[in-house]
């Protein structure tokens, strides 16, 4: 036991003396949470649009005023032709054009119908959609205002309740995602690089020949990264509760327990990679391809899984992060208990065992 402790101490020195790597290990999750929490959003502010008003009547003025009052837009009023609009789009100077045809008010009063045209720069789909939706919503609202005094017979009135996130805050989904990503980064990539480095330097042989069981060597390597991961989970949770105002609805011990499970999953994958990789670069590359990339794409954290074509949806089942993501979401946001997530937990346990068994089988032969 004392020997194990010595080993663990040595590994700690390795990790904690390398300040630049520490910067990334501790700094990245914090930076990501700050960014996701405060900087990344699809909301629109100060969008530059042009309003082309050929009619210039009472109604158009009211609508334009309403749009201006919404504070989302930076409005330029001018009579641009389609060509000019296209040029401005190309220069990136405006994102949307709103066009009122001549005789707008007249048409509305006499024909009961008038048209507004929205032209959006769809080279940025998100922005185009959002801007179009915002403007449509404002116009529709204006219309509703017009009809305020008419009582309609036979109304179906929906009563709507938003669950879990009544204020429709966007931050919820990314927190579990960042947790998963940083844990994989630390547990898979760092661990495998650390093991492969010893392989490259030749010091691995020395360790393997010592009276120490090789499994102890590996275990000693895991411990610092395990602790770092725990620390990261804690800092992420603290930030989310106090800085982002997102309380943890469920049982915090369950959350830590599941995190521990996922950390072990990561370490198992890292071990597997370190056995097959011959150089540090390969270990890094392998970790990225096998864990970070699928987590980013297929775990459901950045992009919804149900939108993906079937083959990708099937592949996503093999990605451990997907299951972890579901587990954390359920606990943190829905306050779910173990009864709800036992299935996903079991799947993670199964995956971990699978990776561990394969690694241990190939261990001695490959690592030496």
């Amino acid at each position: 036991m004392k020997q194990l402790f010595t080993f663990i101490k040595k590994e700690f020195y390795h990790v904690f003396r390398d300040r630049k790597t520490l910067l990334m290990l501790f700094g990245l999750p914090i930076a990501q949470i700050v960014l996701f929490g405060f900087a990344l959003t699809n909301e629109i502010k100060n969008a530059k649009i042009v309003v082309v008003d050929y009619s210039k009547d009472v109604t158009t003025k009211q609508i334009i005023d309403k749009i201006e009052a919404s504070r989302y837009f930076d409005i330029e009023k001018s009579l641009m032709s389609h060509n000019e609009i296209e040029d401005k789009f190309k220069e990136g100077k405006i994102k949307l054009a709103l066009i009122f045809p001549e005789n707008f008010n007249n048409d509305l009063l006499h024909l009961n119908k008038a048209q507004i045209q929205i032209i959006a720069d769809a080279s940025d789909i998100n922005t185009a959609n959002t801007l179009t939706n915002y403007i449509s919503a404002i116009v529709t609202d204006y219309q509703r205002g017009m009809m305020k005094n008419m009582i309609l017979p036979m109304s179906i009135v929906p009563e709507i309740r938003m669950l879990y996130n009544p204020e429709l805050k966007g931050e919820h989904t990314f927190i579990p995602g960042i947790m998963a990503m940083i844990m994989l980064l630390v547990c898979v990539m760092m661990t495998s690089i650390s093991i492969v480095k010893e392989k490259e330097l030749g010091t691995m042989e020395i360790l393997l020949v010592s009276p120490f069981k090789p499994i102890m060597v590996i275990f000693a390597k895991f411990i610092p990264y395990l602790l770092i991961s725990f620390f990261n989970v804690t800092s992420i949770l603290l930030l989310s509760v106090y800085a982002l105002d997102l309380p943890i609805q469920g049982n915090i011990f369950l959350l830590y327990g599941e995190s521990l499970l996922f950390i072990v999953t990561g370490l198992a994958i890292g071990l597997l990679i370190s056995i097959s990789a011959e150089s540090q670069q390969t270990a890094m590359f392998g970790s990225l391809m096998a864990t970070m990339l699928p987590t980013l794409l297929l775990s459901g954290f950045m992009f919804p899984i149900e939108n993906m074509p079937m083959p990708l949806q099937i592949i996503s089942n093999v990605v451990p992060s997907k299951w972890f993501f579901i587990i954390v979401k359920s606990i943190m946001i829905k306050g779910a208990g173990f009864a709800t997530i036992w299935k996903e937990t079991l799947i993670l346990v199964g995956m971990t065992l699978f990776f561990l068994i394969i690694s241990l089988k190939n261990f001695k032969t490959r690592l030496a």
Partner: protein
Amino acid sequence: MRTLFFLLQKEFRQIFRNKSLLGQILVAPTIQLLILPWAANYEVKNISLAVIDNDHSTYSEKFVSKAFSSGYFKPADYCASFKDAYKLIERDKADIALEIPANFEKNLIRENKQKVFMAVNAINGVKALVGTVYLSSIINDYNSEIRLQWMQPQKFSPLPVIEITSTNWFNPLLNYKFFMVPGILVFLVTMLGAIMCSLNIVREKEIGTIEQINVTPVKKYHFILGKLIPFWIIGMFVFTLGLTIARFVYGIVPEGSIGVLYGFLSVYLLAVLGMGLLISTYSDTQQQAMSLSFFFIMIFNLLSGLFTPIESMPGWAQVITWFNPLSYFIEVMRMVVLKGSGFHDIQHNLFIIFIFAVVVNTWAILNYRKRA
């Protein structure tokens, strides 16, 4: 100059012999370009709707079929009660639950007003909003239908309607792939350039061959050029590979001039490789180089405008994007590929990237001098 030739010869020999490296250059971008665009999709569709019909009348059944034939919703598992539906939402098997109360039809006709209840899983705010809007508009439409059926058309004056027609230029089908692929390509080229270049140099540091070179008459700038040029060529190659995949797999053909794209790319690569170079001057081990590059690239990536628009970011974040080369290139890519913007339009970006390249490379070279 001959020295440079020998350096380049050695670099290329080493690169082509390194199978794993070749894999990274060829295989990784290809796989990413083939998978990423399919996955990267923010559209809201296939919203899972659980309907609890307590009425089972003609009206309620018509309404339910209308909701599902709209194309926005797909039916969730059958629920007998609202409590069941709630459980479905908890397990993520339903996004919205809609309850039609008993005596729906009767009450609507008699009392002129009837409520329906919607519970929406709002964890994904965008999805919740869109789902609610869709469902509400379906309810509205259905409402008008019923009114028209029951009331004589002349009994109430038709309401004035403002029709909104919206057109999308440059990407009329709102094809997400058109939007993401150019950006993803930028991301790939940047990763390869910065990370590989810095790792390569630091590896020579770790092994000791850098010291050997320091002792020879090879000048510092020879050495640096000898490292930049091969990776510059690789960057160009990967970009071309990416454009080819974009063309043949996704049908993306740049509207604007390819010459402009490549022109910008050549300067951009200098900037990005310069970053890799700079990082290598601050790293003693490959692990450090990797950690530093990864840290910056991840942050730059998130703040590049690839996933969320820069205009929506708070002031301090926008300031960071001024120093982020990725944001300039992604903008140029979208401008040239989708809108056909020309050289004149991207001049500003080109100028900034040029300055960036000069600053970063000079800083790196000064660092190298000092280390001696």
